[in-house]
């Protein structure tokens, strides 16, 4: 066991770190895009009546399609239809971003709608426009309320990203499978890779949770369990 670990994991650590770098990069970019796209979809759904049904259709579509279908679709169909993405990495990023944006849009909506209506009215009553009330009152609180779901969604992206290897992006999972298929010794390699994924997700979640708890504590709101 230790022998296998020394033979298959240790010598490939450099490779796995390269894969992990790609995984983190893909996830970070995809998630950042998902936040922006989700916010736009949510704001349109809530505040732009004429485009509301487009936003709903987009949200439902992105959530209802399996990630693997989106991956293949963006990677093989988009270049034909739209002339991009130009690389498999971007195809992976876009597919992950589309899927997550749908979930995030719904998370944002519940955060915004859950906020007591009275707080916005208090803003309007002192002369704020709706835009100012949104920026100063709704958004900061919605982010706090939604922090746990947003963190969770990031973990979902990291997990879903293990599928991008099927379009030949050399992420951590891709490298792991390469080593496994070379030596047919899956136990140590896959276990080590699982630990790397767990550590990555845990490190990100713990950091985000600490930031959110800091503000909740500062405002005297109960820290999330």
């Amino acid at each position, binding site marked *: 066991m230790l022998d296998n670990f020394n033979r298959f994991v240790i010598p490939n650590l450099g490779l796995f770190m390269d894969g992990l770098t790609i995984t983190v990069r893909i996830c970070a970019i995809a998630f950042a895009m998902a936040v922006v796209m989700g916010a736009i979809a949510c704001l349109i759904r809530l505040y732009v009546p004429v485009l509301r049904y487009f936003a709903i259709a987009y949200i439902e579509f992105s959530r209802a399609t399996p990630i693997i279908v989106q991956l293949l679709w963006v990677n093989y169909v988009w270049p034909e239809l739209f002339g991009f993405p130009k690389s498999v990495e971007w195809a992976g990023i876009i597919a992950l971003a589309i899927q997550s944006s749908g979930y995030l849009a719904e998370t944002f909506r519940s955060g915004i709608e859950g906020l007591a209506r009275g707080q916005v009215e208090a803003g309007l009553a002192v*002369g704020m426009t709706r835009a100012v009330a949104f920026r100063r009152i709704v958004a900061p609180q919605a982010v706090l309320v939604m922090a746990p779901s947003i963190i969770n969604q990031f973990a979902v992206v990291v997990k879903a990203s293990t599928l991008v290897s099927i379009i030949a992006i050399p992420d951590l999972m891709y490298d792991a499978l390469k080593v496994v298929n070379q030596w047919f010794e899956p136990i140590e390699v896959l276990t080590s890779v699982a630990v790397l994924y767990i550590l990555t997700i845990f490190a990100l979640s713990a950091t985000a949770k600490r930031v959110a708890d800091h503000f909740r504590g500062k405002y005297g709101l109960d820290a999330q369990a």
Partner: protein
Amino acid sequence: MNNAVAEQKPILECRDLRKAFGAFEVLRSISFEMQAGVVLSVIGASGSGKSTLLRCLNYLEQPSSGVVFLDGEPIGLRRQADGGLKPDSPANIARMRAQIGMVFQQFNLWPHMSALENVIEAPRQVKGLKRAEAIEIGRHYLGKVNLLDKADAYPARLSGGQQQRVAIARALAMQPKVMLFDEATSALDPELTGEVLDVMRALAEEGTTMVVVTHEMRFARDVSDRVMFLHQGVIEEDGAPAQVFGNPASERCRAFLSSVAH
């Protein structure tokens, strides 16, 4: 009220105000004028339309018809060159609202801001004051509600009475022409209503123009200059406290008053 005062231009005027939710008429032709410096209490049974009236006064609720004038300017509507009225822009509506303070039953403080930040938020964001200037104003009004020592506390750490006083300071910090209070003490434990009523009484004595929806009959009788009784969206009684409480013309008002007297 003497003649000199009566001849002044009203600070607030409601002209044939109506409000319906669907087919349900909540306010049915409300008309009244109010002079600056007057404290007007609005009383009436639950569901009679008191909150809706206040919310129409600052256009949180859009009237179905009729006009509210603040200091001669129509709210939510804009005078056209030909003298007609057209719907106003959101920015102008916000500008008018900034001149009307409102205190809510549920306080509605912003929980992610300290007491002082709550109070300086509108002077900063709406009036565009510099931070130092806004803080000076904020501290002045927090002092007025006896909460200077709580300037840095967040709402969750304040009692209901303290929160409501911060909310009053927040409204005052915009130096509004009129203050609206919607059952400001109804959500408070009985032992905390006193500190809020004391602040309101002090404001009244300073000559603040106030429209006070209240269930506190003693406050209405002792502090206001004028009392209005609302019944199913109609002003049934409107007069000096002594007259409304002592000798109401309306039978319904008489019945309401005896129902709330213990």
